[in-house]
């Protein structure tokens, strides 16, 4: 068995069913061995697509996603996806081809030092020097990717290592693996201290992050017993049922005003698998500095990184809550809940249904999507205004149904995330919510959807602009819409553009999918219902919306999360 086949057999031994990749000179041996193993390979159209499909697979299952690229440009095309997985703690293994060992370091054709390039954005990386190391490295890579705080691991394999014999057994004992999180010797004391703070609080608020996605039952039990209102980050969406009586809303820059009030006016914040990201906290020094902080995270380096915790707990959220729930007294926080409810009533998130002229409101589209799918569909997003509307108004019923590039905010992530999720869970309805800017960043992957007959549904909100940037220009740069108008004119003067490019519907049809353009609010329900009936391939719904639609409320970057700018009245 040569090194290439050993790699594939090791992947199989890890339980991998599908890998996403693109061939090239330095991985031809790997592709040559592909037919010898029972492993599904999805041929993407650009390596960034492979990286995000692997991420979509991992985000929706919690299992390790795998992507393959050749050396040089194949490897550099993966880099954005690797960085995205690092920021959002997505368990992934990336395998890159490298030039043969004797050619390394000589600026050989398609040689790039990918372990060097990716150093700050991987949990760990390997440059394989010896084929006999392959089984040990691959086993360790998967272990590292999924253990502790998950993340991306890169394995760079020189071409000659793939070609020579590998005699090492692919059966590697797990006892020999590094990176196993050390036992927290102070766990019991930490839990006791956290419980004491929680019991003493009268206005506590939960702040739930992506580290809570595998702790949904524990979270529900804890919140119900202690009677504590729940807010969440973009990454934590889905960990707690949004229709629950204790559910408040999403935090941060475009979070619900009442959620931001609940976190900035609480006396104790209980932070579960979240990291005080600046998109949540705004200016750190005004982010409820008086509140006591209980901070649970499996990554010890997060405890005190941005905010000093009064009670740190170094554990997974599930482990911590399993100990915290019995340690905390049953609560009755009616007065505090009443206060939060008042805020909610006074400053609700409004899903406008339509403009008086029948123009479609994007918020309504997302609300309609929740109603139509019952929140059971997987929804991936791209990055921009549409992403925030989706976060505000799509209500997933379970964790791991809402897939979005949070930490890196990568436009173009959405389509491959949706596809990766569909390959992982083809029985689920999968939607992509995207914008006319983002969709063009990885649109080539439509071919993958058509060929795989993946019935993913694309909800395109076309506002003609790079909308989120335009919104900032409107609010903070005197409406100087510099280079954010995607159509033919430098700035719109009220008349519609003469040249619309691309024609998204025609493009979708050219790829071999189905498409419909929707202008009027009255056609929305029909269009969504129609899309849901299409089962033999992808379908695109292009919704034309007002060019200057904004996302509200908003905390300006570096602003005070406790004082979000509310939607101006009477802008209709």
């Amino acid at each position, binding site marked *: 068995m040569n090194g290439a086949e050993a790699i594939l057999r090791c992947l199989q031994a890890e339980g991998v069913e599908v890998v996403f990749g693109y061939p090239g000179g330095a991985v031809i041996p790997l592709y040559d061995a592909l037919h010898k193993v029972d492993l599904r390979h999805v041929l993407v159209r650009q390596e960034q697509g492979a990286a995000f499909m692997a991420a979509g697979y991992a985000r929706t299952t919690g299992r390790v996603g795998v992507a393959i690229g050749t050396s040089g440009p194949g490897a550099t095309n993966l880099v954005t996806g690797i960085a995205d997985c690092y920021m959002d703690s997505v368990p992934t293994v990336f395998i890159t081809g490298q030039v043969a060992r004797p050619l390394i370091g000589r600026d050989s054709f398609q040689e790039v030092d990918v*372990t060097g390039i990716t150093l700050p954005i991987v*949990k*760990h990386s390997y*440059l394989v020097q010896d084929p006999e190391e392959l089984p040990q490295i691959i086993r360790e890579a998967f272990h590292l990717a999924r253990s502790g705080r998950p993340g991306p691991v890169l394995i760079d394999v020189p071409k000659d290592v793939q070609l020579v014999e590998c005699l090492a057994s692919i059966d590697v004992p797990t006892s020999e693996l*590094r*990176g196993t999180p050390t036992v927290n010797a102070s766990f019991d004391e930490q839990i006791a201290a956290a419980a004491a703070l929680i019991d003493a609080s009268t206005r506590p608020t939960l702040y739930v992050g992506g580290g809570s996605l595998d702790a949904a039952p524990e979270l529900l039990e804890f919140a119900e017993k202690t009677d504590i209102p729940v807010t969440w980050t973009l990454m934590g969406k889905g960990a707690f049922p949004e229709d629950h009586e204790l559910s408040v809303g999403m935090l941060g820059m475009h979070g619900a005003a009442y959620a931001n009030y609940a976190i900035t006016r609480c006396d104790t914040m209980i932070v579960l698998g979240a990291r005080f990201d600046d998109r949540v906290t705004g200016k750190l020094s005004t982010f409820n500095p008086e509140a006591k902080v209980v901070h649970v995270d499996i*990554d*010890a*380096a997060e405890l*005190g990184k941005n905010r000093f915790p009064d009670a740190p707990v170094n554990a997974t959220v599930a482990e911590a809550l399993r100990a915290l729930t019995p340690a905390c007294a049953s609560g009755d926080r009616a007065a505090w809940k009443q206060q939060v409810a008042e805020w909610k009533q006074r400053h609700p998130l409004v899903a406008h249904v339509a403009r008086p002229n029948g123009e479609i409101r994007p918020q309504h589209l997302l609300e309609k999507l929740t109603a139509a799918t019952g929140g059971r569909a997987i929804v991936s997003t791209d990055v921009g205004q549409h992403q925030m509307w989706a976060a505000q108004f799509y209500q997933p019923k379970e964790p791991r149904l809402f897939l979005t590039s949070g930490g890196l905010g990568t436009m173009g992530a959405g389509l491959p995330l949706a596809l990766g999720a569909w390959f992982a869970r083809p029985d689920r309805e999968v939607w992509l919510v995207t914008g006319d800017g983002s969709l063009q960043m990885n649109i080539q992957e439509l071919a993958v959807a058509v060929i795989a007959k993946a019935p993913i549904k694309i909800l395109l909100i076309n506002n003609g602009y790079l909308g989120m940037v335009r919104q900032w220009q409107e609010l903070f740069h005197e409406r100087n819409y510099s280079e954010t108008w995607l159509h033919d004119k430098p700035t719109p003067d009220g008349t519609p553009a003469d040249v619309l490019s691309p024609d998204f519907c025609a493009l979708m049809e050219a790829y071999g999918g189905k498409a419909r353009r929707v202008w009027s609010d009255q056609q929305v329900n029909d269009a969504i219902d129609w899309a849901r009936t299409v089962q033999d391939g992808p379908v695109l719904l292009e919704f034309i919306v007002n060019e200057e639609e904004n996302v509200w409320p908003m905390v300006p970057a570096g602003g005070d999360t406790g004082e979000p700018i509310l939607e101006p009245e009477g802008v209709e």
Partner: protein
Amino acid sequence: MSSANKNGGWSRPHTISVLVENKPGVLTRVAGLFARRGYNIDSLAVAATDDPGLSRMTVVVQTKDELVLSQICAQVEKLVDVHSINDHTEEAIVARELALVKVRCDDASLAAILQIVTVFRARTVDIAEGEVVIEVTGARDKIDAMLRLLERHGIVEMARTGEVILSRGVQPKT
């Protein structure tokens, strides 16, 4: 030992030892985490330990902000190739550094230079026409003091190893 840095704050040197696996790339991974926060490494010494699989890195850095440094250390500790990291600043340690100094000399100055060598328990390791090479071992401040005295004679070249340290057997009570 504190000194004012160019930003006007007071910085303090920290001596940090990192026990790492003896593997390619480890140094870059560790150094990268310091560089990311704009930290300049004052001195760095890396060599094998009694265990051939492990190396010890001794890093001396200045910091104005203890929190930033402890965050860097927390990130270093997460690296898979890192076994442990310790900031020895508050500890009783034995610290040594070695320096080789090439000093200009003539008949008039040679005696004075050799006297400095004797006082600092250094050694002359080479003498040539107009130049003498001195080897000195000791704590950093001892070496600094000797260099100040040698400067007036004219230092031609110098190489320092950077500090290496070990904790003392008995630690002061806190």
